[in-house]
């Protein structure tokens, strides 16, 4: 338990660095120089110095409480995730189902905070965020349950534990048909990532050019800084979940590392994997695709992404039933 503040601080720092890298890479893809990698730290420092304005139409208690709940729940998720191949800090006291539940809280806190703002823009943004959440939860659940079921079918106990899923390496449990199925589930989860993080093309809840920031329009100063940190930590959490399920590979045995060398190599490899996932899942997507309307978001998630995830589920099931042929 004494490690919790340390892990929380590390998650915040790593999340802010990821945001910095994301902004530089996005800028370079648009032929701009972009800000330095430390820009998110400067943003936080600036926001903490600004006035924490509470709008006159708002419900002050809820308006101020939601940023705290959002960041706390995002940090809580990190404690249940295996990082760099090591067991989660709270291993054995919560599994993938709990992680998926806690992952809803930051978005839900933003929705409640938006409704409590008393602003038309924030209300529209909160409504859109709610609809987006309802849409991406189904493909996310299909992916999670399929991988856990696959691990369970291979004879592993505690199959919903993310650490068990990571150590089992789902790619090693299937034949050719299952490989295609897992690839489809991987793609479905990568589609869910920008929605979960409210990034373009799934950021209609914030949509600066349309509804002036949506559910965050009335937030400023410290409260906005907490939401900014929530976004950073959620990026680490989502990328770590995808890494644990679909990229659980180790680099130590490949190069014959042992002891501290192996630990350092695994941490560096984990960071590289997370950066790669963030690039594919958010940076590339937000630079390459324009913003979807809310009705298009529902169709993409409940139509296309769910179809991809269900096809993946069917192929993995067929593979297990046919004995990995």
């Amino acid at each position, binding site marked *: *338990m004494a490690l*919790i*503040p340390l892990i*929380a*601080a590390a998650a915040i720092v790593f999340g802010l660095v990821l945001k910095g890298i994301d902004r530089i890479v996005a800028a370079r893809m648009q032929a701009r120089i972009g800000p330095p990698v430390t820009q998110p730290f400067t943003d936080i420092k600036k926001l*903490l*110095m*600004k*006035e*924490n*304005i*509470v*709008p*006159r*139409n708002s419900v002050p208690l809820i308006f101020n409480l939601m940023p*705290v709940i959002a*960041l*706390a729940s995002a*940090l*809580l998720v990190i*404690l249940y995730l295996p990082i760099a191949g090591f067991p989660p800090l*709270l291993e*054995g*006291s*919560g*599994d*993938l*189902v*709990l992680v998926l539940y806690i992952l809803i809280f930051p978005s839900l806190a933003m929705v409640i905070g938006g409704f409590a*703002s*008393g*602003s*038309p*823009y*924030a*209300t*529209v943004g909160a*409504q*859109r965020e*709610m*609809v987006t959440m*309802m*849409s991406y939860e189904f493909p996310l659940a299909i992916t999670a349950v399929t991988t*856990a079921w696959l691990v369970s079918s291979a004879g592993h106990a*505690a199959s919903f*534990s993310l650490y068990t899923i990571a150590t089992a390496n789902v790619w090693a449990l299937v034949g050719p048909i299952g490989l295609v199925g897992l690839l489809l589930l991987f793609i479905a989860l990568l589609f869910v990532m920008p929605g979960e993080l409210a990034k373009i093309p799934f950021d209609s809840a914030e949509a600066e050019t349309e509804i*002036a920031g949506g559910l965050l*329009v*009335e937030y400023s*100063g*410290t409260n906005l*800084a*907490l939401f900014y940190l929530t976004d950073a930590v959620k990026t680490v959490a989502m990328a770590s979940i995808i890494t644990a399920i679909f990229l659980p590979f180790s680099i130590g045995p490949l190069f014959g590392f042992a002891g501290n060398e192996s630990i350092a190599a695994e941490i560096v490899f984990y960071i590289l994997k997370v950066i790669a996932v963030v690039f594919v899942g958010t940076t590339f997507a937000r630079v390459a695709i324009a913003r979807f309307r*809310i*009705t*298009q978001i*529902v*169709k993409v998630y*409940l139509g296309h992404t769910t179809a991809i995830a269900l096809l993946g589920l069917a192929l993995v099931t067929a593979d297990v*039933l046919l004995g990995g042929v």
Partner: protein
Amino acid sequence: MALIESAAGVWDPLIWAVAVTIIVAFVLVIRSFGKSGFKNRGDKTKPFFSGDVVPESPIKAGNLYWGFFESLKGYYAFLERLHSGLVNDYVYLFVLAIVVLLIAVFAGELVWA
């Protein structure tokens, strides 16, 4: 000690509660670094609406799931057609649902056997 276990999942609410307490305390420490309060002058606390007059109640609770209903209106139109108000139709749908469910259960049993 307080572990809740199902066939596949686990959750320890006691450890969860302790972790939540520590994390919330940590977040409140971060929050304390920020400036609290503000000087209430002018229109600073007026909701931003691009300079226009803020409407009284622009979005109602009934509009909450607008995006959802709008994009799935074909599906909801189909559901509305099913709700004819005739008991005969409802019993027919109930029997149909039971048949589909039984086929799914027995087909599953056969496959697993």
